[in-house]
């Protein structure tokens, strides 16, 4: 009696000598629905580069969609989903745009004097997700128009929460510096700026905070995330700028405020027009993963150092100028008096 083993949906090839079959023998659907769905973004990208069959399987929109939504829950809203679907490679290109940070020196472009092209970005979306110990505590999408004079001339600032709103969390208030340091390890923020018309996105957050400290007077906890962007006009205050994201928590560790501003080396918050220019350059720039989790903070610390150096240089040159003026004044007084007296 011949017994047929039914293997619906699964093909198995067996080696004559009884050796094990290879994974390639397993039905592609199985590979896709079981292994590929469990991979994270970079691994899926690697898998897609192995051979053309896996490339086809890995390009499945559904896979990348799932990865985007699980990495950034805020992208699961109607508007964002719609915008992502217009991207050149839909979810996959959105993921590759938003996963890594902008490379340093990204702003060095073919067009050295990039003028903010206000027409190309009439609106930007911000998809923000805040995590504590890998659990989501806040997720929101905000739309910001960029065409009005109000936006262009006032200091650039995007707030995720309304002034009266706050989001409760179960975090404990940090009572000393060590607990602040712990919070640095436990908090993660993702702030993705999406350009619906240009069909590009960029993550302006450093992932991990660059600083956590308690305000001396109010007791609020200020958590700062920052991405440093190089490549502005050399010698100017905007040679290096920083996308600064501040999360403010009140005494009960409720999230009071989450805001985004762009600062230059003089500590001045850029206006809407200039900030938009910076963002446009960042959107067009390359992307690279941070070497380590600490790199975001290291870059920020370096930025602060350069800020101080710049300030000192300015002070020195001002002092020199002062000395020169005093010298000239003394000289002219002396010359004047000799003229009179002689």
């Amino acid at each position: 009696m011949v017994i047929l083993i039914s293997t619906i949906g699964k093909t198995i090839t067996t080696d004559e000598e009884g050796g094990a079959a290879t994974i390639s023998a397993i039905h592609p659907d199985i590979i896709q629905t079981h292994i590929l769905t469990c991979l994270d973004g970079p691994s899926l990208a690697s898998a897609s580069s192995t051979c053309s069959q896996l490339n086809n399987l890995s390009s499945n929109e559904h896979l990348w969609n799932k990865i985007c939504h699980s990495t950034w829950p805020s992208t699961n809203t109607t508007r964002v989903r719609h915008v992502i679907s217009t991207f050149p490679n839909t979810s996959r290109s959105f993921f590759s745009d938003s996963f890594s940070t902008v490379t340093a020196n990204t702003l060095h472009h073919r067009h050295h004097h990039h003028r903010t092209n206000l027409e190309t970005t009439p609106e930007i979306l911000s998809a923000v997700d805040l995590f504590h110990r890998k659990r989501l505590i806040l997720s929101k999408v905000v739309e910001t128009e960029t065409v009005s004079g109000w936006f262009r001339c006032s200091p650039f600032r995007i707030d995720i929460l309304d002034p009266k709103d706050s989001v409760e969390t179960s975090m404990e208030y940090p009572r000393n510096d060590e607990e602040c340091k712990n919070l640095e390890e436990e908090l993660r923020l993702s702030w993705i700026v999406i350009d619906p018309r240009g069909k590009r996105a960029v993550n302006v957050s450093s992932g991990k905070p660059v600083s956590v400290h308690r305000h001396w007077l109010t007791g609020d906890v200020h958590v700062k995330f920052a991405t440093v962007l190089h490549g502005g006009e050399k010698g100017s205050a905007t040679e290096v700028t920083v996308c600064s994201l501040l999360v403010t928590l009140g005494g009960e560790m409720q999230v009071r405020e989450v805001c985004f501003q762009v600062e230059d080396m003089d500590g001045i918050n850029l206006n809407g027009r200039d900030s938009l220019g910076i963002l446009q350059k960042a959107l067009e720039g390359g992307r690279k993963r941070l070497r380590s989790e600490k790199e975001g903070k290291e870059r920020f610390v370096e930025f602060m150092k350069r800020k101080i150096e710049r300030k000192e240089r300015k002070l020195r040159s001002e002092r020199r100028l002062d000395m020169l003026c005093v010298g000239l004044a003394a000289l002219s007084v002396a010359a004047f008096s000799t003229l009179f007296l002689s």
Partner: protein
Amino acid sequence: MAQEASSSTSSKTISLKTGDGEIFEIEASAAKQMKTVQRLIDDLGDDITIPLHNVFSKELPKIIEYYKKDITGEITKDFEAEFVKDLNDDEVKVLFLAANYLDANKLFEFLSQNIADRLESKSVEYVRKYFGVENDFTPEEESKLREERAWSFRGIKEDE
């Protein structure tokens, strides 16, 4: 509660014979979890030693160990972590293929996740070898793919 006279499968053991001729015992309720084995039992009866041509004595005991724990409802994250801790990537692959052949769903799902975790920071070449696939891209296609993947490389040195 262990012995139920009315149910014919609760305390019975089934004999399984591997492709390399060794015989292992498994409880009938555990065998039920492996659909291929159950089908064979339905066709051949539960008194005969069930032949499993594609599973070998190296992997079957591990599979039996997993399902022994499963029928007592003791599978925890700790158990699963311990289960794969000392296995290398190839051993997990062999178990995965065996679970596929046996149509053992729970183990198959668990091993899929484990394989995905293991492949997480491996190079493209490693993943290729693991899946047993040939690189069928032209050099131009390969460099284009590498460029498209640039966002996933850590630091300056590309991981390859």
